[in-house]
């Protein structure tokens, strides 16, 4: 258990993982931050604004990037996946697979490669609502600010146009995966969440009707760096919208899908209602819900949104959506429970408040990871030296995740005492 190497391995470079890493490093411990995608930042950098302040997530992310920049104790790896962890608390051997970026550290992010790249791919950052080149920057604030090549679509040596275009020798089409072995004292799992696949909810017609989108996609539609440059336009014809319905608990609190409450969707929809409101002051906005869950001071936000006479809250779950074949407008049906009447609202667009699915961990671990029935990691039941932070352990809002991730940092460094 005695090991001079007082370092922590944090798996997941989203807001929770970054927080744990930074907080531990600012106490003075060495941290390895492992992220599987090309940039740190995770889900929050795909958000337009945070509730309830309606402030841009990039602001806090920028501070965190800066904290990482100035802190030599944090070593981060993107496109990296933990393959295996073995050993004992205080002395874990972590095997990390570094997937090839095909772009080396010489990259200056000058964009010359992308200018000549002939291949396109659908953007995962924008949930496939637009395209990037095969060589691309994850987003304008990508950290590290390095391009990456999507090897699933890149034509590699057959094309090699980027190779010629790059003045800095940064393209390495023959880059191979590498393995990195590190020794750490403790491990924090901050593997985060994914949005529920709404296509599984057959009556809500996601993936069938074009104007039915998920809340995560709505964030991109409202974001200045999204596929529509921040203008909320309906997908079928890129038209401005006059009315919109938010369908709460789309999959969540549903035994056929996610039996737990995803905690944040009520607030997310209210927040998105404010997006619509600020872009389209005359639009009619309907929020269909079972229970509005705005705990603590989030209630203030609910009160504020509720006071808006263009936003109607209807207690009753939307269970049926139909599409007008010509106009592509949608009619949502619910029972307005408090009046005992079925209610039909024809709207331009429908946003499904889909919930959070925990990503869990796929790496080989020194001991079995204990999950609850929903796939969330149970923090108290893990073997010593393994800790959990953020949405890997419960569905939660950003502030709660960060609060939790800060606590996880303390747990992770206690092993060194």
């Amino acid at each position, binding site marked *: 258990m005695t090991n001079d190497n007082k370092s922590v391995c944090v798996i997941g470079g989203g807001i929770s993982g970054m927080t744990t890493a930074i907080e531990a490093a600012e106490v003075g411990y060495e941290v390895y931050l492992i992220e599987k995608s090309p940039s740190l930042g995770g889900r929050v950098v795909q958000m337009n604004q945070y509730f309830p302040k309606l402030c841009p997530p990039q602001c806090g992310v920028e501070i965190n990037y800066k904290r990482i920049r100035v802190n030599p104790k944090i070593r981060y790896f993107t496109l990296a996946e933990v393959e295996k962890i073995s050993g004992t608390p205080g002395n874990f051997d972590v095997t990390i697979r570094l997937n090839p970026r095909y772009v080396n550290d010489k990259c200056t992010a000058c964009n010359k490669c992308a200018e000549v790249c002939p291949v396109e791919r659908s953007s995962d950052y924008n949930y496939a609502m637009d395209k990037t080149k095969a060589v691309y920057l994850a987003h304008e604030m990508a950290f590290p600010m390095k391009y990456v090549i999507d090897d699933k679509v890149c034509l590699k040596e057959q094309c090699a146009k980027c190779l010629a275009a790059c003045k800095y020798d940064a393209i390495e089409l023959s880059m191979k995966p590498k393995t990195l072995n590190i020794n750490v004292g403790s491990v924090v799992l901050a593997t985060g969440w994914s949005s529920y696949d709404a296509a599984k909810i057959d009556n809500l017609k996601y993936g069938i009707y074009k104007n039915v989108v998920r809340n995560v996609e709505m964030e991109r539609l409202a974001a200045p760096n999204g596929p529509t440059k921040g203008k909320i336009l309906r997908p079928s014809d890129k038209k401005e919208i006059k009315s919109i319905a938010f369908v709460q608990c789309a999959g969540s609190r549903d035994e056929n899908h996610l039996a737990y409450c995803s905690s944040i969707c009520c607030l997310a929809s209210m927040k998105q209602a404010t997006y619509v409101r600020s872009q389209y002051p005359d639009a009619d906005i309907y929020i269909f819900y079972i229970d*509005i869950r705005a705990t603590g001071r989030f209630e203030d936000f609910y009160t504020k949104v509720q006071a808006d006479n263009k936003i109607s809250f209807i207690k009753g779950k939307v269970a049926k959506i139909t599409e007008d074949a010509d106009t592509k407008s949608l009619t949502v049906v619910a*029972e307005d*429970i408090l009046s005992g009447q079925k209610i039909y609202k024809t709207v331009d667009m429908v946003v499904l408040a889909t919930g959070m699915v925990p990503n869990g961990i796929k790496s080989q671990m020194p001991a079995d990871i204990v999950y609850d029935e929903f796939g969330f990691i149970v923090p108290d039941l893990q073997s010593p030296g393994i800790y959990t932070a953020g949405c890997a352990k419960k569905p939660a809002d950003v502030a709660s995740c960060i609060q939790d991730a800060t606590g996880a940092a303390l747990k992770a460094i206690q092993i060194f005492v």
Partner: protein
Amino acid sequence: MANNLIESDIDFVNDITKLGGGSLKKCFQCATCSVVCNLSSDDKPFPRKEMIWAQWGLKDKLISDPDVWRCYQCGDCSVHCPRGAKPAEVMGAIRNYSFKNYAFPKFMGTALSSPKYLPLLFAVPVILFLLVLAHVGNLISVPAGEIVFAKFIPHLYVDPIFISVSAIVAGAMAMSITKFWKNMDTNNPHGNHYGEKSILQSGILAAEEILTHNKFKKCDANNLRYSGHLAIFYGFMALFAVTTIVFFGLYVFGLELPLKLTNPVKILANIGAVALITGCTIAVYNRLNKKDTSGESYYYDWLFLGILFIIGITGLLAELVRLSGNAPVAYWTYFVHLVFVFFLIAYLPYSKFAHLMYRFVAIVYAKYAGMREPAEDAVTEKTEVKSVA
């Protein structure tokens, strides 16, 4: 204050739980059920409101709610229910409760509600028919010669038995229905809007709805259930018609029995029997294999289905054996058949068979009281409801 004093009846909740509504407490009132139900109207749709009434043990509301009988338990609601509260089954359980609740006399309701009384219930027709056999001397040996069932148990005995039983049953039904109608009239959650249709008009419309099964057809989740029910229904109606024709034929026109196989009435009878058996087979298959949509099956369901199935099979079997010439088997099969027919008819108002009358009455009432019908493929903005959250 004029608010209604609510007294939750835990016993009622427990009863509903036992009668097939075991999942009712899971409901969290999202109203998915009311929306996915193709039979539910726009005004005060079911079964969301019935679910909370059931959860709260509000018996009076439920037993006088016509909507309980406008549900065909097709299972759309149960399939989509996010909590596994199975509203379809709860509605079924409430109907089961109603059989017992409206039973006249009361003890008959109790007798049909639990398998422990089953031997007693069967003992009545068995003893009755055995006494007849003993009286006519057919108890020890069956009549010789051409197999004619009337030789075994003569019409002279059978018909008066069934006529008097039917009369008693009709009387009991009248009592139950009167009470049911009165309850609906006082407690109808939709409020009464009389005057649109007369009772007669309502009755005709209700009959049309039942005969065409046009509401039942709207079920999405389990279409097989609709087919099964249709087969049973028409099989039964055919057999009922045959019985009526034969009865009148016998006494009015001196019809000779057994009928020839080519006789149109006989053909109808056989088709009816086959339809009944086929329908029952589908129903049994459904109940065993499609629990997600059909839901769990309970005593009321199995008893009724079993009786019908056996009636169909024994009827057909009796005919086939008769044709094959095996007199003892044929006669005793017929005996069994009669016992089950007796069971069906005599206990009609208390078994699930009674759903026929309650449903019919409820539909008549609904039409008479001006209750809304479900919207036809409603996609247009019909109601403008500004909700107070």
